């Protein structure tokens, strides 16, 4: 049953109806927001302080999430390039008789592998064991200090690409050099320094076991099989004919991202149609698992940092609003005297915190986005940002405001009007 009160101005001495009718609650959302905005704008310094606190928290969160996604993308790109795109195949050792191989790598293994889908390049590499001397002069100088001669490795033309290497001078070994078992060599930078060869345009020669080889190139940059950087590389057929190479060694394969498991499955079959069990394949783990592990670790750490920053922002708002309630006791008492209910008083202070949180959230989101963009441009990264972050940031700001404002608002609503007026004088 509604209770009605209505106040009318009576005329002294006359008859008058005097009935207090309860009017509808006139404190609308518009009044709440108007009071909140006016209450905040009256203290611009404090408004800036609290907005900055939320902005730092939300901005940190947006930036850290953005950096997490961008950074993981960068790390992932590099990781993919090196680890997730390499596969190697080698004859397996007999577990019962170590040293005895269970299969023979075919000399055309690289050609066979390059026919598979997902294979970008393939190359054979075998260490030439029967090398005794590698020199840049035809005779040994008895006065020269003894040093370690560089290793000699027999490689196929596709090998350099599989190890992400490049030719700095001259050319790499190709099919022409293989076809005639030509006595040519490509030096890694370490081998070139050891042998004192700095240029190849004058067709310098080196002597392996006293046999002359023409240096046609100097290579570098190998990310895998870095031992080639200190080695002398010769064509496989040349090593078979002139240096006693007996086996084709192991196969290095460069694959497309995500093709690891398929190529690993097909490689033994293509090398040995009879079964392929005699080959061991080292394949990269599934990319999705690597990506999840990597990005999961990065995201968790950055998320914790962002949440800590946001928590600090919430605390700052709560403290500032609590101080504000203490300072505004007189105003609370006045409003209560004017007819404000406890709920309306609490609503007013929560609304102020919500406005602060919303402002801080939006500005923080913008700052975080610009931060990620700016750093990405400076580092030549590709920025990765989820557009939903902006909306979520605004929601987070509002929630921070509500959370921070609850306690001070309740405290304000419990002030007795008479006491508050007296204390606020």
């Amino acid at each position, binding site marked *: 049953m509604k209770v009605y009160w209505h106040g009318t101005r009576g005329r002294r001495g006359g008859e008058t109806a005097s*009935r207090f009718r309860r*009017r509808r609650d006139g404190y609308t959302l518009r009044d709440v927001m108007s009071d909140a905005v006016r209450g905040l704008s009256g203290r611009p310094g404090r408004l800036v302080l609290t907005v900055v606190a939320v902005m730092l928290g939300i901005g940190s969160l947006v930036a850290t999430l953005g950096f997490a996604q961008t950074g993981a993308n960068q790390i992932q790109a590099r990781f993919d390039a090196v680890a997730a795109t390499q596969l190697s195949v080698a004859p397996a050792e007999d577990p019962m008789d170590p040293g005895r191989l269970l299969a023979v790598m075919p000399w055309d293994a690289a050609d066979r592998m390059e026919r598979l889908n997902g294979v970008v390049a393939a190359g054979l590499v075998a260490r030439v064991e029967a090398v005794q001397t590698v020199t840049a002069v035809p005779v040994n100088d008895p006065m020269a200090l003894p040093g370690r001669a560089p290793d000699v490795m027999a490689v196929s033309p596709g090998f350099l690409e599989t190890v992400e290497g490049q030719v700095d001078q001259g050319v790499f070994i190709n099919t022409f050099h293989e076809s005639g078992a030509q006595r040519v060599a490509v030096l890694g930078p370490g081998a070139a320094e050891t042998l004192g060869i700095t240029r190849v345009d004058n067709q310098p020669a080196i002597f392996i076991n006293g046999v002359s080889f023409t240096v046609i190139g100097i290579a570098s940059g190998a990310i895998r099989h870095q031992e080639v950087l200190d080695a002398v590389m010769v064509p496989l057929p040349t090593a078979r004919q002139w240096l006693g190479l007996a086996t084709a060694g192991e196969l290095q394969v460069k694959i497309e991202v995500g093709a690891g498991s398929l190529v690993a499955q097909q490689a033994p079959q293509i090398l040995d149609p009879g079964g392929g069990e005699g080959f061991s394949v080292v394949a990269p783990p599934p990319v999705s698992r690597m990506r999840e592990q990597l990005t999961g670790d990065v995201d968790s750490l950055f998320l914790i940092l962002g949440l800590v920053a946001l928590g600090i922002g919430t605390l700052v708002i709560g403290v500032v609003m609590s101080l504000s309630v203490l300072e505004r006791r007189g105003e609370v008492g006045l409003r209560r005297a004017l007819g404000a209910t406890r709920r309306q008083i609490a609503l007013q202070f929560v609304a102020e915190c919500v406005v602060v949180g919303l402002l801080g959230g939006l500005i923080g989101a913008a700052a975080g986005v610009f931060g990620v963009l700016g750093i990405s441009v400076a580092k030549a990264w590709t920025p990765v940002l989820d557009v939903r972050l902006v909306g979520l940031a605004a929601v987070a700001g509002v929630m921070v405001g509500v959370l921070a404002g609850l306690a001070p608002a309740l405290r304000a609503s419990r002030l007795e009007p008479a006491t508050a*007026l007296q204390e606020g004088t």
Partner: protein
Amino acid sequence: MTATDMAQAPPRATSPNRPLIELTDVSKLFAGPPQVLALNDVSLSIAAGDYVSVMGPSGSGKSTLLNVLGLMDRPTVGQYTLDGIATGALNERDRSRLRGTAFGFVFQAFHLLARRTVWENVALGMAYSGLPRAGRAERVDEALAKVDLTHRAWAKPSTLSGGERQRVAIARAIAAGPTLLLADEPTGNLDEATSSGILEVFDALHREGLTLLVVTHDPKVAARAARRITMRDGRIEGVTAA
């Protein structure tokens, strides 16, 4: 008679002597420490259209009486009936809303919001009194006109004199159309000439039918009222009619 009974009863003309306010054996004890019996067995009735002053020395209980009458405090014992509504039966929310509807307050310290304009200060209580948004602006303008401050509507309180600030407070108190105006030491911070101006405003409002209760320690202020109550140590010492 409870508020619910009031709602069910048909409108009726009231006797000119029907009390608007009726206090019966009201006492108010503040627990402290120290314990203070601010009101001690006070019985009082005020009719619609009355102009009552309550005078007494500091600590006589006059401000506590005003707070009880204005529903800002509850009696410890006794009954307080406001136009037949048993206020003791009301919950906190209904007390607040009745206070916003029935009463206007004027305080010694003015209690204006420093960072709002005169106009915004006068409009402050409108929403709490339950008035719809349409029409609020006209009421504010009307109230400012009654206290002759229309020309200062957009000034900040810090630029006003003491008398002007109190008139703003009066405009705020009457803007929502209350039945009673409760003033606690309204001239306490003003000089004699300014105080006289405020009292003239009260006289004008009373002539228009507003019921007034003024708490004061100043005999000259108290003398303006038609009925003068004196208090001491929480008790009504005497009542004098003009």
